[in-house]
């Protein structure tokens, strides 16, 4: 299977789908994979947090492992880290979900998560779960100041991250000024070469920007454009699965409200 990427030089990969914060939401993850493939994605990048909150951690990690075996690049998120590191501090619902997740994942899945890198550099792009200035600190990018700190800590022209579950676009101009923008789904944004960019993908498995549809990115490396995509999925089924596993009911309720 690896042969397919080896025989396919990086330069001709033009459409890359980037997924962040899948959070064991099988329904959302599979709907987005289908959507991305239907839109001719040639490669996947996984920006971390495969588990936590949702009801299908084993399936989600196995799917991520299969994608990586097929050439996808993947980084580790704080929930993935918390599986093997009980001291990782999180809110009470997240902690309950991770305690349950530890009892769900087999050794290969746990080894996979523990072995993931914090960052991956690919050409002029950097992939990281939360932000680049201190990847293992998992701080939120919630302001232009946070974004500037991340951009200035890298040499990459474009950094892609997730973690905050809300889509955003930040850029740093040659004159050292920051711009912030809330993207519109389906409208390609040109990544102008004269500035440096931080692109915050929304979340696949638990969007928090008021829109319950799963959020991901499609990068066109030839046109140097990134498009924020929204994929509707079977929220009822995902919520029912969370309830069936006896996880906190708020984790089920919030899915249909996108918060």
């Amino acid at each position: 299977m690896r042969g397919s990427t080896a025989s396919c030089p990086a330069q001709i990969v033009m459409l890359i789908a980037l997924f962040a914060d899948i959070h064991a939401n099988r329904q959302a993850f599979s709907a987005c994979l289908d959507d991305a493939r239907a839109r001719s994605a040639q490669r996947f990048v996984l920006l971390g947090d495969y588990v936590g909150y949702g009801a299908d951690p084993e399936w989600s990690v196995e799917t991520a492992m299969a994608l990586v075996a097929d050439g996808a690049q993947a980084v580790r998120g704080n929930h993935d880290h918390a599986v093997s590191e009980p001291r990782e501090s999180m809110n009470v619902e997240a902690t309950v979900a991770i305690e349950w997740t530890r009892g769900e994942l087999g050794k290969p899945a746990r080894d996979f998560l523990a072995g993931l890198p914090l960052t991956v550099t690919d050409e002029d792009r950097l992939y990281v779960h939360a932000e680049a200035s201190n990847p293992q600190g998992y701080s939120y990018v919630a302001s232009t100041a946070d974004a500037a700190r991340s951009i200035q800590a890298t040499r990459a022209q474009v950094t892609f991250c997730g973690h905050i579950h809300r889509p955003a676009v930040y850029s740093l101009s040659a004159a050292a000024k920051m711009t912030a923008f809330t993207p519109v789904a389906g409208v390609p944004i040109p990544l102008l070469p004269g500035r440096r960019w931080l692109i915050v993908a929304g979340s696949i498995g638990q969007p928090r920007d008021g829109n319950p549809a799963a959020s991901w990115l499609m990068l066109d490396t030839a046109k140097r454009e990134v498009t924020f995509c929204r994929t509707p999925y079977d929220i009822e089924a995902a919520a029912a699965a969370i309830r069936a596993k006896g996880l906190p009911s708020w984790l089920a309720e919030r899915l249909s409200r996108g918060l």
Partner: protein
Amino acid sequence: MVKPTLEAGALIDGFRLEELIHRGGMSELWRVTRRADDPPMLMKVPLIKEGSDPATIVGFEMEQMIMPRLTGPHVPKFVAAGDFAVQPYIVMERIAGQSLLPRLKELPLPYPEVAALGAKIATALDALHRQHVVHLDIKPSNIVLRPSGEAVLLDYGLSHHAQLPDLMQEEFRVPFGTAPYMSPEQLKGDRTDPRSDQFALGVLLYFFSTGVRPFGEGETLRAMRRRLWRDPEPPRKLKPDYPHWLQEIVLRCLEIEPSWRYPTAAQLAFELGHPDQIKLTQRSERMRRDSFRVVMRRRFNTDLKHTPRKADVTAQLASAPIVAAAIDLGADPSLNEALRVTTRRILATLPAARLACLNVNKVHRLALDTTLDDSGHSKQVDRLVGLRAWAEPLKLDAARFTVHVLEAVDPADAIVDFALANRVDHVLIGARDASLARKLLGSVSAKVAAEASCSVTIVRPPRAD
């Protein structure tokens, strides 16, 4: 990144520089050629030197983002863009025709010409706003008329695209634009309101019809800020023969508060196209500026004004459509009542919508028609009266509706043409019942539904059973 000076004959990415047409402070414009079958083209090259104004670079980045997305006759067609890292440029269609700048020598222009020009520019603005873009630098040098008559808007370096990052907004805290044309909200840093372009067009119309700029040259920020509280001299004070309807339009465009202007550029274009039906408010009669007391209140009682909300170009256009109701005055009363019910429903949900009531006077292709009936009445007037009577129960403000009798051989063609020419968003039309007439003549509503450029709702009376 110091660039060598460009010279005629040079080749950039296959484009041959033929002639330097213009050299401004921020960019050069070259006439370029590539292949024999290419249309006439221009290359815009920013002048980026060490220590040059960052606004030059950001403006050019904005233009490179926005121009490839624009379509239609009111923008120059985009051809290609050059990489910033190598040689930044934009190649676009070269419009045959001159900008409005040379016409400043002829000011003031006759009123009907100003209105016709204003309608063309407002139509172009509407087309741009529908593509989510606020221009923010409307002025004579940025407007060119095509030989076919459409106004084309140039220069998107200061524009705002509602669906793309606004690089200008964050980069510069001082307002950018052209001093005499800049709207009050733009001065305060709001770059998101499409009605800012209406203000600039109001300045242009005032200037072109009086020969005087309403706010002077306003070069200093202090002089520019005066328009936040000071209204201009009413045109009628400068020119006693100034038409009331034109003063109504111009002063409404120049309202300090954006929500007091027209809801959309399409509605402004509609008014400019139908001067005889404009509702004349006190604006149209003013002979002097607002009193000192009013001005002082505006200047110092700023807490009366609500904080400006972020305008959404797309939502605002959607909330203020032009609706046309096609009324067959001879139709069954129950059908016309059903049309009225549907119209009321739409207008009730959209308070900024406006209504055009249409009736078609069918004329014969060959026979000479008389405009008078057998007893000497004007048919045209009778029909206008009939349309007003139809609309009366809707109790609409005069500023919200107009009546139109169209003369045509084919009623459906007339309705379709009216909708296209007046940028109508939605046509309401009754279905004729299954009569002999429909069998013989075909259905007008079906033809309108098939051929109109906008949405069409076909209305039927409620079922009798």
